């Protein structure tokens, strides 16, 4: 379950999501997709391409611009036993349906003591590329982690994208499925047959004895790049991809930290009351008193996202700043290290669609 079988077929992250949806729609007539633009020619960056042709206009359809009511519609259909997948082109738009997600979806099973369930998948895409600005680049996973009753996936690889999507669709609970615009072109081995990636299981991506780096979504890619940079100066990093943010596999993280004595968390959002602080707090609660460890978190600068590229470069953590932070933790704040890192291909070469 936890590592890809030796099947050589390669898909992009976007294609893996499309395949997951297709297979589940074929398997279960209750699965349907709705959202702005899901049936247009661009098919949500290809992740819903032509599903309306294959399954009919009532199983993959465009909606009015009405995030709040459409979320309620999805929940209502879920209450009736269907399995809606509601797609949002930007996670920022979820702020328009927080009431339905947090006051309604998250609480229905509980308020009614199990009389109903809400098997809903909410796909939310983090919009970073460049120039997206303050309102098209945000990630709100911490909002969903804060309230009981929601599950959250944030897969990084094509393999996990497909398996997590299938698990999300089959789960009887509301699942927020967080994607990242910069991951869609990433390629990886993806088995053709349907499979589930389990909730609550983190992936230890690399072994290393000096520092544990926990990264979320696209930051996993940057953390792995940082790991290679660190290798050059003899620092071994253990990179962990939590995959499932709720439920969260804190055991894998804490076990790693107890080995390395250093915890660096890199998030795709702000620090305050965010995922990164949560990991620090959990690690402290588990290890506090028992074992001293260094801890640091990285994420968005404490500002809204600026549009201009030079400031955007300061806003986001990247391979270089992650490597430098890990380096400082291992070698001490004073230790200097000069590294040059090229802008990642997916960002440097980005030409849209936005």
């Amino acid at each position, binding site marked *: 379950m936890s590592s890809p079988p030796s099947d050589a077929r390669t898909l992009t992250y976007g294609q893996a999501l499309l395949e997951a949806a297709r297979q589940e729609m074929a398997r279960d007539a209750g699965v349907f997709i709705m959202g702005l633009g899901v049936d247009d020619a661009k098919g949500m960056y290809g992740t819903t391409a032509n599903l309306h042709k294959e399954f009919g206009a009532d199983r993959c359809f465009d909606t009015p611009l009405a995030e709040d*009511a459409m979320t309620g519609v999805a929940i209502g259909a879920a209450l009736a036993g269907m399995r809606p997948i509601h797609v949002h082109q930007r996670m920022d738009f979820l702020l328009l349906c927080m009431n*339905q997600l947090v006051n309604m979806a998250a609480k229905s*099973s*509980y308020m009614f003591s*199990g009389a*109903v369930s809400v098997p809903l998948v909410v796909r939310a895409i983090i919009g970073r590329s460049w120039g997206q600005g303050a309102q098209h680049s945000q990630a709100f996973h911490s909002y969903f982690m804060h309230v009981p009753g929601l599950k959250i996936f944030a897969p990084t690889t094509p393999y996990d994208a497909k398996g997590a999507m299938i698990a999300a669709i089959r789960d009887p*609970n509301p699942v927020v499925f967080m994607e990242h615009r910069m991951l869609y072109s990433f390629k990886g081995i993806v088995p053709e047959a349907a499979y589930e990636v389990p909730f609550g299981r983190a992936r230890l991506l690399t072994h290393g004895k000096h520092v544990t780096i926990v990264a979320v979504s696209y930051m996993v890619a940057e953390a792995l790049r940082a790991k290679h940079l660190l290798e050059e100066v003899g620092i071994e990093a253990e990179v962990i991809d939590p995959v499932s943010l709720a439920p969260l596999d804190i055991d894998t993280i804490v076990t790693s930290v107890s080995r390395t004595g250093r915890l660096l968390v890199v998030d795709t959002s702000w620090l305050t009351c965010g995922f990164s602080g949560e990991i620090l707090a959990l690690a402290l609660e588990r290890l506090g008193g028992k074992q001293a460890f260094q801890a640091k978190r990285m994420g968005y600068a404490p500002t809204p996202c600026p549009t201009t590229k030079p400031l955007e470069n300061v806003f986001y953590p990247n391979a270089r700043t992650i490597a430098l932070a890990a380096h400082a933790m291992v070698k001490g704040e004073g230790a200097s290290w000069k590294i040059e890192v090229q802008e990642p291909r997916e960002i440097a070469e980005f030409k849209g669609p936005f």
Partner: protein
Amino acid sequence: MKNNDPSISADTIARFYKQIRRIRRVEETVIDLYPTDKIKSPVHLSIGQESVSVAVCEALRPTDVVFGTYRGHALYLAKYGDMKAMMAELYGKADGCARGKAGSMHLVDMKVGMMGTSAIVATSISQAAGYAFALKQRKSDAIVACFYGEGAMDEGAWHETMNFAALKKLPVLFVCENNGYAIYSSVKDRMSSVNICARSESYGIPAARIENGDTRKLYAKVQSDAAAIRAGSGPRVIEAMTCRWRDHVGPGEDRVHRYRPDAELNAWIAADEMKKLGELLPATKRAEIDRDVEAELAAAITFAEQSPYPEDREIYDHVFAAE
């Protein structure tokens, strides 16, 4: 008084009366009980508004589904939700319809198509449309009835839902219970034009107002609307004029807040549907119904009193649905 509508049988009138009476008596009992603090759940009473829920639910089929609001006692009972489970729920007991987790504001009885209610105004409206979408998708002949107060129409969710429901021709009957107030705020101070039907019609949804909480007129209207909706007409709106006799929340009197003319309330009380319908029945029949209602009520109270509280560990149950 005579029943002038030949299409409505004496049996039906008796059912109307009994259902309204059940709701009235349950809520009067809640008022009596409230000072004892046995019910530690804020209650939004529907006394005065019973006829709307009763007329609609009598005209629906048992397999139809209803969505309502925190002012949900009337709807729950009108849809034949389990009175014992409701009373136990108000008491916060383990045999409540949601084992004490819901309280008065979130009544639910899935066996009879009573969907759980919400305490956030207007939030069930879009869910009702979504449920109707599912019914349509499955080619079910069931329909959804969705109740909301006129206050809910202020919310964006109402607008978004009307548009979507009409766009997709969903099998849903929207019932706006216009009692003229949201808490102590008059609809005139909240709506730029108080034209509930016209606003609904601007989405291409046929809408009609029924005055005076008239049970029989409402019933007849819902019968024809429901038939049209089942036949694929798409949504309909009914604006049901009604009046809340008691305070917005809690067991108290309403007049003390002095936000509306006494005469307004008096007129509604004088035109009480329970009384009107009761007078259409032979006295013996009425007495028999009243007795049955009291017996059912007494049994429900006893049931609630005797039910245990949920155990502490239950707090962790049902955060997530099991597979």
